């Protein structure tokens, strides 16, 4: 964290890293085929939850000054997700890509991300979305914080940076909890941060011309982390037989009565 003087006021210049992932579009039909997950030819997009992380990073940058680096593990195609973050306003993007990272679990992802974050260096804040749309475990942020040895603030809906600390509102089931931590810190961001901005046309121009560096495991100086969790079997949910029955009657009341009888008889309620 550095101090910069702008317009006679002292501003922080934070180095913020937004960790993102490329996932199948939310409308994709995901199914198991031959023990593998497949989503057919559905388009791949930036994980929608990670857009909130990028938004949180950009809002923080706008509030106190600094830079936002989007970081992603994935194949070459994941550059498209990074370009989305650039088009939203991220300053730079880095892809970590290595054939050995094809089927990693969250622990392995956390180790790789931590190595990349260290290589970027001097990160003040590392942001994640609350979970990914494909695996959905929501663990990677906490695991990355653990590997980096940094405080972890989860489910963050509001961010304020003050005197070398970050003060956040955590959105929990019971309400909101305000907590603070010394920077650097890892945050996972939820929707309360605000709707992610659309890419600007200027951002699109910048992103489409961007040369995104690709780091391999050897660039990070690490071996492929062993998966802690191994997937043994993958099954589609059993197909449910549904039967549609149209209930008719003379009056709405008669229809409602027949419906209520059926609901009770079938023990739906």
């Amino acid at each position, binding site marked *: 964290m550095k101090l910069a003087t702008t317009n006679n006021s002292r501003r922080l210049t934070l180095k913020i890293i937004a960790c993102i992932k490329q996932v199948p579009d939310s409308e994709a039909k995901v199914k198991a085929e031959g023990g593998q997950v497949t989503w057919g030819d559905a388009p791949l997009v930036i994980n929608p939850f990670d857009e909130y992380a990028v938004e949180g990073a950009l809002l923080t940058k706008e509030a106190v000054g600094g830079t936002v680096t989007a970081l992603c593990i994935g194949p070459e195609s994941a550059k498209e997700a990074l370009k989305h973050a650039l088009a939203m306003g991220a300053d730079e993007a880095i892809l970590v890509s290595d054939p050995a990272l094809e089927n990693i679990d969250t622990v392995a992802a956390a180790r790789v991300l931590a190595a990349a974050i260290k290589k970027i260096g001097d990160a003040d804040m590392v942001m994640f979305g609350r979970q990914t749309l494909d695996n959905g475990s929501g663990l990677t942020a906490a695991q990355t914080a653990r590997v980096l040895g940094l405080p972890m603030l989860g489910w963050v809906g509001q961010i304020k940076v003050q005197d070398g600390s970050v003060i956040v509102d955590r959105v929990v089931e019971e309400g909101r909890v305000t907590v603070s931590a010394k920077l650097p810190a890892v945050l996972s961001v939820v929707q309360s941060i605000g709707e992610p901005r*659309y890419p600007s046309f200027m951002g699109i*121009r910048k*992103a*489409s011309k961007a040369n995104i560096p690709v780091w391999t495991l050897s660039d990070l100086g690490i071996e492929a982390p062993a998966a802690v969790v191994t997937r043994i079997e993958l099954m589609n949910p059993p197909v449910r037989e549904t039967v549609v029955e149209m209930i008719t009657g003379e009056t709405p009341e008669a229809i409602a009565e027949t419906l209520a009888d059926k609901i009770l008889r079938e023990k739906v309620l």
Partner: protein
Amino acid sequence: MDFSLSPEHEMIKKMVRDFAQKEIAPVIKEYDRKQEPIPFTLKRMGELGILGLPFPVRYGGQGMDYLAWGLACEELEAMDTHLRVVMSVHTGLCGMTLFQWGTEEQKQKFLVPLAKGEKIGCGAFTEPGMGSDVAAMRTSAKRDGDYYILNGEKMWISLASKADLALVTVKTDSSSPKPSSALSSFIVDLHSDGVKTGEIHGKLGVRAGSTGWISFTDVKVPVENRLGEEGEGFKITMSAFDHGRYTVASGATGIIRACLEASVKYAKTRTTFGKPISEHQLIQEKIAKMSQDYEIARLLYYQVGWLKNQGKRCTRETSFAKKFATEASFNAANEAIQIHGAYGFSDEYDVERYLRNSKGAMIYEGSSEIQTLIQAGYALGERADKPLRCEAPAYDEAFWQGE
């Protein structure tokens, strides 16, 4: 020959689609039913830079090329026609014509606020008694010192009551033997004394859009607001239509796509005679036709976008694109309703709105019949494009994106 879109084009498509899906989809049925314009459409399109998408950054725009403009129109009209209409009249008829024909001073004064979305523009050509027959125009302007005095009425003007500026073509020389040299075009401040505007209600389609009339009673328009020379109004209006028709063509392509997507989705889930209707060959025929038409319409407007980027006149190709896409969109919507059966007849589904919206584009900005005559004229060698004093400039990335 490369038919692929650049990453920049793909990102623009996605950005515009996301805007339409997130902000317009939730409310479009409500406003279409109420026959009221969505109050935030213009403001949001301005804030997001969509209104100034194809203009150079130095004129307040976003520096994108002509193809990107068409792609945005396709995405917008795939949601609802009123969104694309804004791109036709504000960005096309008014803004792009100003960009083509305006002096540097006029561009700075009028185009910059339009491109930034700070002001809204429209194009006013049609009159209560005149549409395609431009020679029958009655609205007039008489020179009086440093001003022209405008009198008359324009009708069926999209954004008439929302716009700050209008590109208006009027008769300046009632004695001219040649109708085409009797017309002149002006940028008119619609907040001037003597200007009245109003909405037209009871339209078949584009019900969430604003369509109206403008009347001019002794409206003083400064001479410096004349676009081009006196007598160039016909050429300027035809240039405006070249731009407008491109947006209409690309937008109508969006309707075809929307009909196709809705029909495929419905046909796969609706079952008759023990199987999804998508397995019935007569349904497949309709879907295949939509799919084919979408591809043709897309290629036709891509061609126009490419020609515009090259700075080549493309009145003929624009006419092909406009006529084909608008008629195909009407047919696609008609068949989409048929596929949806009784549900398609209800506004519970979008396809009836697509049909109502698609009809207008076969009438405005040169009806299908006028397009046919244009095309026949070119084919028979009776029509040729003469050089214009101000040609639409070719897309030059360095110029467009430079500050």
